[in-house]
């Protein structure tokens, strides 16, 4: 009986010791983005005809330009969408016909020369595979026609180009 009692006390002490030494050690870390997007130039709509708005310089507009900076090669895709609706505008009672294009404006490396040829377009989206580290500038053309030869109401029109950096 004595021995059993002793064993029981020793087991209890071991259990207590093990429980007291347990600890939780946190681990934190920050990941800096390796792909950043900057607005290089804000766009302006020109109004070459009563029913048309366009960012083309020939139409009196200014092309918006967005820059992608990629620190590591071949980890990201650029997805740029030309607008298909107005963020703000006067009350419109007729249909709008949207169109647009996205092109490589310039690059910081010769190896990016193939981006334009390799781009993928669908709907109002354009995707580029960013296979080379460095900066790439993309210019966006946006055009909108109002109704069937109908004059656009006077006021301020605002549309937005969406640029995303998607990890592959």
């Amino acid at each position, binding site marked *: 009986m004595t021995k059993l009692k002793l064993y029981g006390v020793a087991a209890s002490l071991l259990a207590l010791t093990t429980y007291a030494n347990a600890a939780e050690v946190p681990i934190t870390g920050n990941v800096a983005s390796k792909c950043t997007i900057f607005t290089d130039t804000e766009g302006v709509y020109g109004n070459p005809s009563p029913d048309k708005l366009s960012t083309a310089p020939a139409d009196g507009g200014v092309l918006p330009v967005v820059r992608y900076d990629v620190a590591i090669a071949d980890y990201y895709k650029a997805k740029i969408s030309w607008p298909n609706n107005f963020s703000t505008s006067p009350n419109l009672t007729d249909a709008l016909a949207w169109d647009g294009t996205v092109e*490589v404006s*310039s*690059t*910081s490396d010769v190896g*990016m020369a193939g981006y334009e040829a390799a781009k993928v377009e669908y709907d109002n989206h354009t995707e580029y595979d960013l296979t080379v580290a460095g900066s790439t*500038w993309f210019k966006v053309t946006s055009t909108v026609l109002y109704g069937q030869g109908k004059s656009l109401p006077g006021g301020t029109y605002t549309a937005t180009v969406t640029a995303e950096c998607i990890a592959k």
Partner: protein
Amino acid sequence: MGDVLPDASAPHITLQINGLIYRYTAVKDPETGMIVHVRNEDAIDGGYVFEETDDWSGLPGTTIQKFFSLPYTDSTRWGDGEIAVEGEGSVVDANVVYSYRMDIGQEQITCLNPLSSPECPGFLDALRKYLANLDNLSPDDPFYDQWVQAQLEKETKLEEETVANEEDQEEEDLEKELSAENTMDDLIDSGQQAAMLAALTQVPKIETYYTVTIPGGEYQDTVILEDAEIPDNRRAMRSLARDETHRSMVRSQYDRNQ
């Protein structure tokens, strides 16, 4: 570099280049080979102080722009620049921008004319020379205040010198008056004396002393002594005899003792 960079040939000015951005559009067939060199000659050591090569071989042409952050290099090393193309293709819309820092020794530049700032070395000397050549100054002149101040100081200095001279003269006069070596000339105003004598010698004033007439005449003798016999004084003769006797008696005593 021609006139691409600002002129830094003036003294106390240095120009250093610390960055470069270039941009151009390569026009070429993707199948052809093309190499583009963007570079600047090294005007001092020879070769190139900057050179970047873009190999477009097998690639389509596009617009490229590159930025380079460089260690500060004196602009004198940066010689003529060029964008050279090897192979088939061309470069259009080329643009090169240099980032530079211009150091201007502001104090040295400003003080090329010492009058530019009171902080410049030699300002006071230059100001004195400038003001010395002016008789009058317009209030619009930038140194009008200094000129007025200088005039006031000049007047004050003149007054101080006058007072000092007067004090010195007073001290000198006092010293002379107290001196034991006074001469007649110092004590008497010789000029005043001469003037006085000259006044006295004037005939009309001294004539009266010379022309006084003293009334006189002949003074006749009033006492007439008639001839007569004057007898000897017997009493005197006797007295003299007694005196002689007495003297001989006294004398005889002395003679006997001998």
